């Protein structure tokens, strides 16, 4: 069969497939209903056979190219999977995320240790010798921290005139989720980046806490942080854990090629980042609209905070054990 005969024989099929693909890709909902899935699948399979024939018979480039393009387009449409939307989100919250956390238990423990140890050490050190805060921040920043939690401010945890709750909400989202993503992404360097950012952020938070406690501002400081901390710090630890997972895949790929191990680690640990992002969003909302309120009575604040702590750890520990 010559190329021209081949083309003449199958041209109609190709054009039918091409126009069906064009209709589907135009993206209109009504268009989807007009095209018959079964017909497309069978046309696609035939185009695949014809492409194989055309290649084996060394048909001219334009013919093979056209078939290659046609099958590639159809392949994209037929095998695509759109796993986003409300259903997958529900699955993520109901069991995928807490299960992923438990599946990465070792990484979470290591990440928590690297985060909390510097926090404790710096906290105790700075509490004992408050001038050490200057080894972490400059005097201006230290003074501004003091002002944020002093008795006179209008809202806890922010400078006078720093902005409304909404402005702070935006700031917390951009800043804190950015830190979380950084802890994850820098794990690509054999995990070292994650370790560094975890330890650095832990040490910084510890130093500030120790400093403010030593200044006698512990009531306002701890009543501010206690409610959003279970979401925020846990989320940072989880982001770090997913970074460590990726780093571990590079250092020790096990029975996979290094490249495959990395892809698998990325796919499995990104679930932690999804969940952590959600937790950081919750944390930002609490921090902006609830934690900063001076008018809230302390017992209420502490009891809500206790509920949050129990809820977060109960969720990560028990949720989704039997479902799905």
């Amino acid at each position, binding site marked *: 069969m010559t190329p*021209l005969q081949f083309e003449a024989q199958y041209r109609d099929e190709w054009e039918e497939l091409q126009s069906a693909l064009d209709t589907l890709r135009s993206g209109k909902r009504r268009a989807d209903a007009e095209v018959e899935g079964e017909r497309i699948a069978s046309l696609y399979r035939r185009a695949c056979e014809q492409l194989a024939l055309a290649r084996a018979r060394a048909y001219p480039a*334009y013919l093979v190219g056209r078939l290659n393009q046609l099958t590639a387009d159809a*392949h994209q449409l037929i095998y695509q999977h759109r796993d986003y939307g409300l259903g997958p989100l529900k699955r993520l919250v109901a069991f995928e995320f807490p299960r992923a956390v438990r599946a990465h238990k070792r990484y979470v423990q290591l990440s928590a240790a690297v985060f909390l140890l510097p926090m404790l050490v710096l906290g105790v050190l700075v509490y004992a010798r408050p001038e050490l805060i200057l080894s972490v921040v400059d005097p201006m920043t230290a003074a501004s921290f003091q002002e944020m939690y002093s008795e006179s401010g209008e809202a806890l945890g922010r400078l006078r005139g720093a*902005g409304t709750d909404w402005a702070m909400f935006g700031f917390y989202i951009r800043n804190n989720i950015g830190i979380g*993503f950084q802890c994850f992404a820098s794990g690509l360097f054999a995990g070292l980046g994650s370790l560094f950012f975890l330890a650095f952020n832990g040490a910084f938070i510890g130093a500030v806490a120790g400093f403010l406690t030593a200044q006698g501002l512990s009531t306002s400081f701890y009543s501010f942080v206690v409610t959003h901390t279970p979401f925020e710090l846990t989320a940072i630890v989880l982001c770090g854990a997913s970074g460590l997972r990726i780093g571990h895949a590079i250092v020790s790929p096990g029975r996979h090629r290094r*490249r495959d191990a990395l*892809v698998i680690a990325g*796919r499995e640990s990104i679930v932690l980042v999804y969940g952590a992002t959600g937790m950081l969003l919750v944390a930002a909302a609490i921090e902006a609209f609830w934690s900063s309120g001076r008018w809230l009575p302390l017992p209420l604040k502490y009891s809500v905070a206790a509920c949050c702590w129990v809820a977060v750890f109960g969720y990560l520990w028990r949720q989704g054990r039997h479902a799905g």
Partner: protein
Amino acid sequence: MTQTILDTIVSAETPEGIAIELRPAGLCSRCYAYLLDQLIRLGVLYAVAIATSLMGGFGLGLSLILLFGLEWFYPVVFELSRSGATPGKRVFGIKVVMDSGLPVTPAASITRNLLRVADFLPMLYGFGILSTLLRRDFKRLGDITAGTLVVYEPPRAPKIAFDELEPLAPVQPLQPQQQAAVVALAARSSRLTPERLDELSALAGWASGDAGRSGREVTRRVLAVAQWLLGKR
């Protein structure tokens, strides 16, 4: 096809056993696309910042959230759309696909875009550029981890123009590879200078019985053989 070809084509196999050819996009077109996307982001941010500056604290919060979204999720949103490409990528004819040639999945798109942080280090996408330059498939670190590939939208191969020439049977039976070579030459004839076409046709003189000769007439006869091979009789 076991000999090594100096080419960057990646072939992805479909479940039907067909190899689909993907052409990874190199550093330059990706840089241009990135810069264009940066400009678009800046423009949007600037416009929104002006609009929200009148709304006080709420507006500031809104523009910070928008900044966060643009920083991290601008590419994700566009890569998950039907085109699989950000506006910048679309302008330069490239898009993001999975290694298998399929549309990029949400997990992969988010992974490759969060890992931009790692590619950006130590400065100005240093590691990303290094990785792109060292690899045959031009992946940056985020692409390696997410299992994605940035590819050119394939251009359509030009069709061969057959008009005036009377088809001519080859003087001897030609091997499949020889047939393919002659037809491929004909397919390229409109894009070559006449002098170059003559040179190349002289090399294919065995097809029309003109081995060892060259010139306009040989070219015409070789192209005529190509038409016969294509099926014009």
